[in-house]
C-alpha cells in the first residue's frame, strides 16, 4: 500500500451537527479531530471527549486510512453522519449527539 506523503497528510474532523440532552454537554459545532492513523488529537478538538461518541467514529477512521493508502479521498461519499451510542430519551437512553465527518489538510 502507498503511504501518504507528508504534504498530503490529512486529518479527519467530526463536527457536531446536533446534540440533545447530552450528559457530557456536547454542543453543536464543536468538533473531534483525528489523525489519519486513527489517533484522537485532544489539543485540536473542542468537544468534551465522550467515548460514547468517539467509539462510534472508530470504524470510519479505519476506512479513512485504507482509502488514503489507496490514493482515494479519505471519506466515502456515502452518508457522512454518525450518531453516538446513547439511544436517546425516547428509546431507553438519555441524550443523542450526531456528527458529520469531513477531512482537511493537517493544520
Amino acid at each position, binding site marked *: 500500500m502507498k503511504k501518504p506523503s507528508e504534504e498530503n497528510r490529512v486529518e479527519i474532523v467530526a463536527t457536531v451537527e446536533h446534540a440533545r440532552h447530552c*450528559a*457530557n454537554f456536547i454542543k453543536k459545532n464543536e468538533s473531534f479531530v483525528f489523525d489519519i492513523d486513527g*489517533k484522537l488529537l*485532544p489539543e485540536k478538538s473542542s468537544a468534551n*471527549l465522550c*467515548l460514547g461518541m*468517539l*467509539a462510534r467514529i*472508530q470504524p470510519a477512521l479505519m476506512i479513512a486510512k485504507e482509502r488514503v493508502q489507496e490514493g482515494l479521498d479519505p471519506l466515502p461519499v456515502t452518508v457522512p453522519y454518525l450518531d453516538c451510542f446513547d439511544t436517546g430519551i425516547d428509546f*431507553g437512553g438519555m441524550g443523542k449527539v450526531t456528527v458529520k465527518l469531513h477531512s482537511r489538510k493537517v493544520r
Partner: protein
Amino acid sequence: MNKNNSETTYHFKTDYLKDDELPELREPLSKALDLKEDDFNRLSPEVKNLLSGRRRIGVNWLDDYEVVAEVISDKGCACGVKIGQKAVFDMRHRLKPEHSDIVCCMHLLSPVLAVFYMSFDRASEGLNPVTRIWTHYECLQTNDALARNKARVRVFLRDAKTHEIITKAVLDKNEHLFDEKTQ
C-alpha cells in the same frame, strides 16, 4: 419507545422505580440536560435505574471516581502506544486529556466503552462501578500476526482525588448493603 411496554419484564423487573419520581434529581438534572417536565416524566425505567446509582454510591459518584485504562502490552503497535501509558476517564466516559499520557489511539480505546455500560448498571446495584471480570481490552486491529501482537489495556477504578486504586467489590460506604444481602 412504546409506553405500553414500559412494564414488560424480560428476565427481571426493571421498573421497580415506577412510583418513584426521583424528586431529588428532577430539578438539577432537568436544568443540566435541558429536560422539560414532559421529558423527565417519560424517562425509561432503564434510565431511571441508571440515575438511581447516586442513591447507592453517592450523589457525586460521577465525579468522585475515575476509570483508568493502563497499557500493559504494546508489541506490534505502530501508533506509538507504549506500556505504562494511561488514559483517564471520568465516570461519564469522558476522556480527561489533562490526566492522560496515552497516545489516544481510537482502535485501542474504543472497546473500553463497554466498561461504562457495565458501570452504570453496577452503580445502580451499589457495587464497585468497574467490573472485576471484563478488565482487559485490546486493539481492534488484527494485523498479520493473527492477533498475537496487539496493544492491550487493563482497566481499574481509582479515587479521583487521591488516585487510590479501588478494588473492593462493594465500596466502603455501601458495605452495609453487602451485609444485608449476604444475611
